[in-house]
Structures are given as structure tokens and as C-alpha cells.
């Protein structure tokens, strides 16, 4: 577990052992929003640029709502910014998949399809859950995830079943990201595998033979990429604490 760090940059205690599903899901959405935002002004077409920006905004909104909910529930006076901007890499509990670099468009669409299928299953479940606030956030997020999935899986199918070049790039992306799907689909293995299997088949893409899986995101053990992402995301708040505009 995460025990090494005992205090934050300004001597504030780090709640190093804190971990709750609401926080996991907030972190997933926060990190993926940041990744997708990297596409803004870089996509090949304006429509793609807008689509990825919009999807990023939805993820950011889910993250903000959940962080606020976690903060209000614990009642320690923390805000969404304390969670997003003032926690270290080891305190983030997002899935390894969402922190993976964008790569080319095929890799971003494979990552998104894997995640959207999981999110659709998760939010549909939580929309029926006991916690009223989470259920409300989930009911909204479930519809958004289904809409995102139409976009991401639609592109994955077009790329996989497209030209030789796009097919190869999509297959490379599946091969590279498959190792992060074990912890992603935990709890929804059957449904997730069935949905992804059908999409990959339609896209004429193969599930990799190598069963190797990397896990650890929920415990704060990340790949090398998260630290860099957080450094860029958090530097302004850390350089100018309390900055507002």
C-alpha cells in the first residue's frame, strides 16, 4: 500500500490511505479528460477536435461532481481542487489505461472504446445504487458514456475495417493497450468481454494472444506516464497556490 509519503508540499497531511470507489471513478474521469484535452487543436479535422473536446468536458464534469461529493461526505473542508490539483501520483487511484498516452488517433479510439464500454456498465449499475448523489451523477454519465461509445466504437470499426494502414494501426493499438484491460473490466468481465469481442470482430481486429496483464492503478502504482500528466496539469496551482482568475 501507499505509506511512504506522510505530508504534502505545504505540510498538509496527505490522506495516503484514502481510497473509495467514488474517488477511483473521479480519478479515472479526471485523467482521461486531461488526456483527451491534449487533442484540442491537434486533431486532423475540426469535427474530431470538437468531439474529443466535448467528450473530455463530460469526463471532467463527472470528475468534478464526484470529487465535490467525496469532499462534502468527508466534511473536512476540502474542495474538488484539493483532490484534482494537490494529490501526488501515488495518491491517484485511476486505472492504468486512462493515463496511457494518446498515441495516434487509432490508439485514442481503442482506449476510448475500452473505457466507454466499462463506463456504460458501471454507470448503469450505480444509477440504481443506494447513494442518491452518486446515482444522480451515474444516471447522467450512463447516457453520456453510451453516446461516447457510439463515437469511439464507430471509429474503431471504420479504422479496423478500413485501409491496410488504418487496420494495422488499430491492431497495434489493441495489442499495446490490451494489458491494461484486466483491472478495467474487473467486476464486469463477461459483459465487457462480450461487448468488446463483438466490436473487435466487426472491426476485423484480433484479441491479442498474450494474456499478460498489468494492474495497480487502484493502489496508486502507476505507469511512468501519470506523473508527467499530473506535472502539466498541476504545475500552475502548485506554483501559485490559491491562484484564481
Amino acid at each position, binding site marked *: 500500500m501507499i505509506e511512504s509519503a506522510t505530508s504534502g508540499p505545504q505540510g498538509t497531511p496527505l490522506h495516503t490511505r484514502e481510497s473509495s470507489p467514488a474517488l477511483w471513478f473521479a480519478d479515472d474521469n479526471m485523467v482521461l479528460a486531461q488526456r483527451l484535452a491534449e487533442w484540442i487543436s491537434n486533431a486532423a479535422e475540426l469535427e474530431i477536435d470538437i468531439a474529443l473536446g466535448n467528450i473530455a*468536458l463530460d469526463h471532467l464534469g463527472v470528475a468534478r461532481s464526484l470529487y465535490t461529493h467525496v469532499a462534502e461526505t468527508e466534511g473536512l473542508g476540502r474542495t474538488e481542487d484539493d483532490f484534482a490539483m494537490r494529490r501526488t501520483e501515488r495518491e491517484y487511484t485511476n486505472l492504468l489505461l486512462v493515463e496511457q498516452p494518446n498515441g495516434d488517433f487509432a490508439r485514442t479510439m481503442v482506449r476510448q472504446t475500452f473505457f466507454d464500454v466499462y463506463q456504460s456498465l458501471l454507470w448503469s449499475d450505480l444509477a440504481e445504487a443506494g447513494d442518491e448523489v452518486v446515482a444522480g451523477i451515474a444516471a*447522467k454519465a450512463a447516457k*453520456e458514456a453510451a453516446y461516447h461509445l457510439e463515437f469511439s466504437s464507430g471509429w474503431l470499426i471504420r479504422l479496423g475495417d478500413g485501409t491496410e494502414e488504418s487496420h494495422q494501426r488499430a491492431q497495434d493499438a489493441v495489442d499495446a493497450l490490451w494489458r491494461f484491460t484486466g483491472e478495467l473490466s474487473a467486476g464486469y468481465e463477461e459483459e465487457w468481454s462480450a461487448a468488446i469481442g463483438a466490436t473487435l470482430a466487426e472491426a476485423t481486429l484480433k484479441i491479442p494472444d498474450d494474456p499478460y496483464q498489468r494492474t495497480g492503478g487502484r493502489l496508486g502504482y502507476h505507469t511512468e506516464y501519470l506523473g508527467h500528466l499530473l506535472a502539466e496539469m498541476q504545475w500552475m496551482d502548485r506554483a501559485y497556490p490559491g491562484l484564481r482568475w
Partner: protein
Amino acid sequence: MVIPTTLTLDKVRSTVASVVDPEIPVLTIDDLGILRSVKVEDGRVRVTITPTYSGCPAMGQIEDDIVDALESAGVEEAEVVVTHSPAWTTDWMSEEGRRKLAEFGIAPPTGESEVVCPQCHADSPRMVARFGSTACKALMVCSSCGEPFDWFKQF
């Protein structure tokens, strides 16, 4: 006294209800269905709203606009609370809101197969982009008159 005695609850409510969506200014927050309640407790006005989309960037602006509108009406202390439950749906949009949207040139929320062109009322438009000029809209083009238009997605 933070609320002038001349101000009735009806007046407070209509002041809040007339605040417009900064991204679709033909619609008020009441038309959109995001205004859930207006209450006066111990001389303070408490307004509850629900976001349309998780990532709606207009929410912060709407909160500020509500407080400003109430201030202009003489209310000194107002609080805006955002609630996520139950989740907003396009079903909450008023008939009046749908009419205003269509007049403005935005197809109101309906099932994707029922979208009609707000200009020539032809059906079966083609979707150009699933994500349009704001989070709540998709971009369509009319297959009859050829005019591109926004469709307020049904959620």
C-alpha cells in the same frame, strides 16, 4: 432585512426564472428545466439547479447570472445550490422552450429518427457531426433544403 418587503416570492421566482442560458440565449433556465426550486429561508434566497450535461461549461456562468439578477431585484443574500439527483433529462424542457428553440433554428430534442429541419420542416436530415457547437447539440444537414442546423440531442 435582506429581502425588500415589496418583493414577493412570485417576483423572486420570476426573476430567477428569466435568467437565460448563456449558450442558447433564447432559452431561460426555466424553459430548459434546470431550475428546480426557489425558496426563501430566513430572509435568504436559495435557488436549486441541475446541470444539463456533466461537463456543461455554462453552469458557473448561470450561477453568477442568478445571483446578479437577484441583486438587481434587491435581494442581497442568495445562494445557488447544484443538485445532481435526479438527473436532468430533455423531458424537462418546456413546450414553450421547444417552440423557442425551433424558431431560433435549433431542432428541439426528439428521437434521432424524428428530427425535422427547423427551416423547411423536411424530415430525414443527415448527421454531420455527433458533437456540435455545444455539449448538448449535434450538427445536422437538411436533405431537402441543404441547410445545416443544430439538433438539441435527446438525453
